[in-house]
């Protein structure tokens, strides 16, 4: 298509948007609302993933060694642990460290209760283990338990399972919502274009008589959908970005637990912008194309 034709088609599309003012505005806000909901769920999903990752990173396995094991054996066990697949890093926590920790944190002010422990330390040496993939915790624990002189392996599998399943659920729900909203938005824009085609049937008829190709007739309508879809994307993006920025700031200032944090607004902005523009434009173009296919029979 020549530049001149494209420019003309764009001019026509803009005119159509203005001519169908109320309908265009209604479509624009409905699609923006769909994108807004989509954005909220996408941010929710992204943050659940982000938080899951943070929880995963904080989830460690504690491996306790029999009290009879010698220091050499403890070091050897360390090497054996490292050789287990899925083990990312380990750190030794000796029984002396444990006692010191108990004195400092757990029995602070009641050190008397730990009297005599220095001479006969009842604690065991242990390794703190960080895994590559937390979803393989059960398998890794089984492997670790096979190591000789290992007393017990403690992990937070329940927490991990809950977080992983929650994250999976949110992902699935978000995808389902995306599909539903996409469908709703396509139906809306398709309806708008259907009305436009109906309102402009005389013009289309004249175009056909004059010798316009179907493509020439369709393009302004498709561009009309594109303009509405794109404008909806811009509006929805501004609202979502503003809302999310306010939320992140609020949580940062007032609800900072220091345990988990949300993804920064600046970090998600490009992704949301691309998602909205792609979805908005796609909705506009597909909706118009469907409508044109069904109603352009003059």
């Amino acid at each position, binding site marked *: 298509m020549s530049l001149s034709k494209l420019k003309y088609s764009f001019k026509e599309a803009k005119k159509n948007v203005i001519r169908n003012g109320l309908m265009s505005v209604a479509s624009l806000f409905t699609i923006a609302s769909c994108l807004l909901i989509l954005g909220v769920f996408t941010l929710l999903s992204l943050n659940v993933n982000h938080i899951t990752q943070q929880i995963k990173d904080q989830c460690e396995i504690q491996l306790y060694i029999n009290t009879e094991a010698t220091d050499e054996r403890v070091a050897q066990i360390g090497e054996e642990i490292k050789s287990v697949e899925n083990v990312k890093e380990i750190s030794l926590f000796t029984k002396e460290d444990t006692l010191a920790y108990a004195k400092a944190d757990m029995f602070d002010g009641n050190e008397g209760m730990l009297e005599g422990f220095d001479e006969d330390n009842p604690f065991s040496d242990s390794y703190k283990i960080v895994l590559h993939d937390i979803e393989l915790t059960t398998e890794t624990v089984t492997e670790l338990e096979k190591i000789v002189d290992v007393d017990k392996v403690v992990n937070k599998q329940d927490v991990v399972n809950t977080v992983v399943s929650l994250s999976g659920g949110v992902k699935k729900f978000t995808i389902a919502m995306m599909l539903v909203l996409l469908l709703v938005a396509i139906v809306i824009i398709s309806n708008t274009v259907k009305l436009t085609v109906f309102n402009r049937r005389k013009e289309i008829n*004249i175009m*056909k*008589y*004059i010798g316009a190709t*179907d493509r020439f007739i369709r393009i302004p309508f498709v561009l009309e959908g594109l303009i509405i879809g794109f404008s909806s994307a811009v509006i929805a993006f501004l609202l979502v970005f503003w809302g999310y920025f306010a939320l992140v700031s609020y949580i940062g200032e007032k609800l900072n637990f220091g345990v988990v944090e949300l993804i920064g607004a600046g970090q998600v902005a490009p992704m949301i912008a691309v998602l909205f523009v792609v979805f908005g434009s796609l909705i506009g173009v597909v909706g118009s194309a469907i409508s044109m296919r069904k109603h352009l029979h003059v």
Partner: protein
Amino acid sequence: MIEFRNVTKQFEDAGNIALSNASFTIENGEFVFLVGSSGAGKTTITKLLMRETNVSEGEILLDGIDITKLPEKEIPFLRRKMGVVFQDFRLLEDRTVYENVEFAMRVVGANSREIRKRVPEVLNEVGLNYKAKMYPRQLSGGEQQRVAVARALANHPLILLADEPTGNLNPKTAMEIMDILDEINRMGTTIIMATHAKDIVDVMKKRVIEVQDGNIIRDEVGGEYLESIEA
């Protein structure tokens, strides 16, 4: 040259035969009136020429090419060889006179320079240059039809199809339109005009093809509009 060879058109929904075994030839540059009572088959002929509908049987040759066999995607290009004028003008109400003519040129892919040159030229031919910025509702019926003629001429058509172009006009304005069409014809454009206007047919003394119940019953150069034709 247009050649109808044993053309029959039967509309499936209505079941009646709109045109039956019609054969005639129209040379380039001819002016032909299609006359006959309402529903006789005049409009069917123009519709077949534009491939708005297709034949049930027979062939229609345009410069040797059988247009009945044209694939759908070629139809717009066939129509670009023709200009069309309707009884009800069919102008776009929300566009100015200039824009209505420009629109026809945009449709066929003319560029802005060609449009800037051709639109005033063609508006001048129909005597409406000074009303280029007006909207159709601000014009009289005759002026609106002149805009329609200008639009039909914008793309230099080989053939101009006019379906009752004077049907909504008073006799004086109708004759003004006919003068324009006659002038266009003198410049080489073939004109095929379906009409009920006896006074016009009689005055113009052009070739007359009379259709009755789908049959060509008369084809006469310099013919008249016979009293026997019902309106």
